[in-house]
């Protein structure tokens, strides 16, 4: 019964995603999966407004389910574009690596792994050498972009990082980069990591202003 229900859940999610994709006009789909370049914001003369606009563009990545799913506000990671609770029911555990006996690497590998000989509803198991949850103080689930922005600048909630280190993390961290290479069957975050890194760099260069909400 449980297995049946789980499969129904997976199938239902995939149907929702598939239906969403079919209803989205091609032009809009194209736009939603790309990022504006940092340079294109030069037309905004007010530096604070430009900084906010840059962060809002970066927010297309930051608030994408591919990122938020592993920045949960509870002990449970999320899954899928619908951001449902992870199944099987796994928990944060020490270092965000899962509980004893049921760690992330019980299933997740060092790379995305194709699922062989199954229905097309699940094409791959995501993976990365550093696969783990972000610490609870870095939770993004349920927060507005403005709240996430303030949090990113707070050393107590950003892993004691300087803004330069935040730029480096966003632009080059391999697990962050997984968002653009999420494996077969999973929608990547918009744009490229290089474009995203330039947006974050430009945001920092313009004073790292935050959206009001």
């Amino acid at each position, binding site marked *: *019964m*449980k*297995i049946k229900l*789980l*499969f129904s859940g*997976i199938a239902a999610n995939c149907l929702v995603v598939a239906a969403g994709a079919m209803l989205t006009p091609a032009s809009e789909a194209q736009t939603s999966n790309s990022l504006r370049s940092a340079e294109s914001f030069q037309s905004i003369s007010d530096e604070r407004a430009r900084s906010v606009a840059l962060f809002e563009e970066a927010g297309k990545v930051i608030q994408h389910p591919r990122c938020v799913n592993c920045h949960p506000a509870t002990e449970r990671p999320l899954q899928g574009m619908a951001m449902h609770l992870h*199944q*099987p*029911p*796994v*928990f944060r*555990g020490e270092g965000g690596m899962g*509980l*004893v*006996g*049921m*760690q992330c*690497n*019980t*299933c997740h*590998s*060092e790379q995305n*792994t*194709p*699922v*062989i*000989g*199954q229905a097309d509803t*699940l094409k791959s*198991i995501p993976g990365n050498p550093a696969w783990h949850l972000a610490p609870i103080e870095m939770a993004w689930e349920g927060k507005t972009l403005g709240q996430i922005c303030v949090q990113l600048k707070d050393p107590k909630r950003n892993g004691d990082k300087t803004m330069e280190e935040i730029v480096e993390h966003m632009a080059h961290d391999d697990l962050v980069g997984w968002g653009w290479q999420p494996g077969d069957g999973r929608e990547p975050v918009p744009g490229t990591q290089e474009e995203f890194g330039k947006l974050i760099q430009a945001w920092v260069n313009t004073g790292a202003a935050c959206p009001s909400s």
Partner: protein
Amino acid sequence: MVTFTLNGEQRTFDGDPDTPLLWVIRDFEKLTGTKYGCGVAQCGACTVHLDGMPRRSCITPIAMIDGSDVVTIEGISGKEAEAVQAAWKGLDVPQCGYCQSGQIMSAVALLQILPKPTDDEIDGAMAGNLCRCATYHRIRAAIHNAAKSMEG
């Protein structure tokens, strides 16, 4: 060519590197104690030990285990395995039994790491092993019994 140890013996496999470890264990090595349940790491029936840690063999490409040590239900040994076997028999844990080799592999791995797990620790470690007969209450009790039997 992938070389690995299976239940203490060196084995090789030179088929498709994407072949799931579960298929190699069952179809090529003819060790059918490890079960196919869902094929997508949702049920835990295919659990084996990979380098001493529980691992879902259905989503483990054989290429990934080159140089690794794989233990299946047929090869499990040691005091935790013996304690679990006795506790499982003592409480008649299985009903249909299909999921039980996966349950046992997870239970043994848990006891190897935590010799006296709490209810919460048992629930956390076993959460990925489904049982359609709902023998969960006996599984949890048997793990406690196994832990107690190892104390002396």
